[in-house]
């Protein structure tokens, strides 16, 4: 009797699990065709030498060996890290501050939330042309052409006038700031969406308990927001590490190697120096580093939640 019942029970569970699996089936299907298959193709290519056309030569791990000693590649990783760091601190702090401000009962809330999302909606073309003009270092008839330098002269700080994008000391920071400006709207709406799902009664309870707004923020808002903040952090890392269109539009093929990031290196390996295999090796290494970083963050946040 028992021996018969157990398998039936198992069968029921496995059928149940199968029905549950059906939920992810469409996602897995599309994903396998458009991601997994190209991924293995890419991995395979990273073991080859290939120009993009013509025959492929198997070279084993040679591309990876070469990458290990490629100083430009590792410095490009550092540059992306710097841009990401600014995005994580400056951009997300701004996004969070704005989201908290708009989560309150203030006037023109709708207006603000609409406007703050304009930079992400803007086409890269506009951002490129506009910031090229703002940061233009040139002069005509003794007057600065760029808006920023122009303003510096107007407010009486002409000695701060600077060659913003062509100086290794400032180029990367300029790129990072423009990137943060373009991206804070994303963090803003996601954080706002998260804030909106926090139960208002919690705030009331805190108020009755006599907590000040600052205490409420730290003891109610922030803990409730940890999962959303984690997602925003991961997406910020993802978006900032992979930034490149902005870089192309601000400094073209780059200020020597000072503005290179992994994605511009990959693109240059692909189209400038025609090393497809090497580009794929770069992509694999880059991806692995990103995965490790984000999973480390995830486990960190899990530990934080438990603490």
């Amino acid at each position, binding site marked *: 009797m028992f021996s018969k019942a157990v398998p039936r029970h198992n069968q029921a569970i496995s059928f149940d699990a*199968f*029905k*549950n699996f059906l*939920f*992810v089936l*469409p*996602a897995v299907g*599309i*994903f396998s*065709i*458009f*991601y997994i298959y*190209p*991924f293995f*193709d*890419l991995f395979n290519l990273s073991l080859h030498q290939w120009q993009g056309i013509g025959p492929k030569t198997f070279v084993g791990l040679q591309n990876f060996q070469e990458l290990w000693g490629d100083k430009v590649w590792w410095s490009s990783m550092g540059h992306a890290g710097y841009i990401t760091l600014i995005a994580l601190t400056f951009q997300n702090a*701004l996004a969070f501050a704005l989201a908290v401000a*708009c989560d309150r*009962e203030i*006037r023109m*809330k709708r207006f*603000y939330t609409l*406007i*703050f*999302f*304009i930079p992400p*909606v*803007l*086409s890269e*073309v*506009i*951002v490129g042309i*506009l910031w090229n003009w703002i940061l233009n270092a040139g002069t005509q008839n003794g007057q600065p052409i760029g808006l920023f330098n122009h303003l510096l002269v107007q407010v009486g700080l002409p000695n701060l006038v600077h060659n913003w994008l062509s100086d290794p000391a400032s180029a990367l920071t300029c790129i990072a700031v423009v990137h943060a*400006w373009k991206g804070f709207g*994303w963090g803003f*709406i*996601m954080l*706002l969406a998260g804030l*909106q*799902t*926090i*139960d*208002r009664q919690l705030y009331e309870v805190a108020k009755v308990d006599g907590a000040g707004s600052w205490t409420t923020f730290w003891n109610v808002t922030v803990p*409730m927001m940890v*999962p959303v903040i*984690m*997602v925003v952090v991961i*997406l910020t890392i*993802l978006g900032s590490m*992979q930034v490149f269109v902005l870089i192309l539009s601000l400094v073209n093929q780059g200020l020597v190697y000072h503005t290179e990031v992994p*994605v511009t290196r*990959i693109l240059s390996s692909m189209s400038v120096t025609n090393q497809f295999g090497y580009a794929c090796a770069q*992509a*694999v290494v880059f*991806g*692995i580093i*990103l*995965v490790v970083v*984000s*999973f480390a963050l995830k486990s960190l946040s899990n530990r934080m939640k438990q603490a």
Partner: protein
Amino acid sequence: MFFNKHKIENFFKSALIHVFLMIVVVSCLFPIFWMVRSSLMSNATIFVDPSLIPQELHWSNYVVAWTKGNFAVYFLNSMIYTISVVMGIVVVSSLAAFAFSRLKFPGRDFLFYIFVAAMMIPLPGSFVPIFVLMNKLHLVNTRLGYILCMINVGLCLSILLLKTFFDKMPSDLEDSARMDGCNRIQIWWHVALPLAAPALAVIVIYNSLNVWNEYILATLLLSDNNLMPLQRGLMVFNGAYQVDYPVLMAGLTMTAVPIIAIYFLMQKHIVKGLSSGTIGGLYDPA
């Protein structure tokens, strides 16, 4: 006169907040203003005329952009792509995220991590295998092929975002729905989706923007002029050698309008007033 100290404090506090917000607003509005202003100038005056509002307004730039950019066809195409890709992503990713968050099956967590990891790894050379595969499936130069490809592009991120929101969903709601005789699909539809409305709104915006501005995959997969999306029209003005700035700006202004409209529509799901605190009482304060 008697002033309430609390009131004054509040007034200054909110004034301070508004000043802060207004500074950010100006930095966001400036590009839009600049874009519209530039779209009304001519190529000869666009970089020389310093006046805020140009004396001569070239409204014809919009007509030129619309006709020369073949916008009538491309607009419709982009609409089709955007709507179908976004609908596809919402359904596929919310089903998957619901399962990852709420249902059990072997390999669940592993599969979820694969999706998250995939988001991180760029595939620079993937255009070759994708094109070869699509060609074998006879999906090159078809709407369906492009739509499937684009669904994949936004899939991982949407799953991650939605799962985060489903995880926050209180389980007693799900339990009571089950008591009422709802099956999994019904719980997904009647409980999970409405609760994740803000996240869904974010996903809709994110993916609409993605599809609306996409041209690399479209160039790769589509050949027929009648299937091309809007960005293809803009490329005509933003050529390798010559850029027709005013007409380009007019085109960009027109393409920005629908996206801002979508955001405007979705915004109400993100920003709710106090009154709509429907989830009230569901969270366990502990």
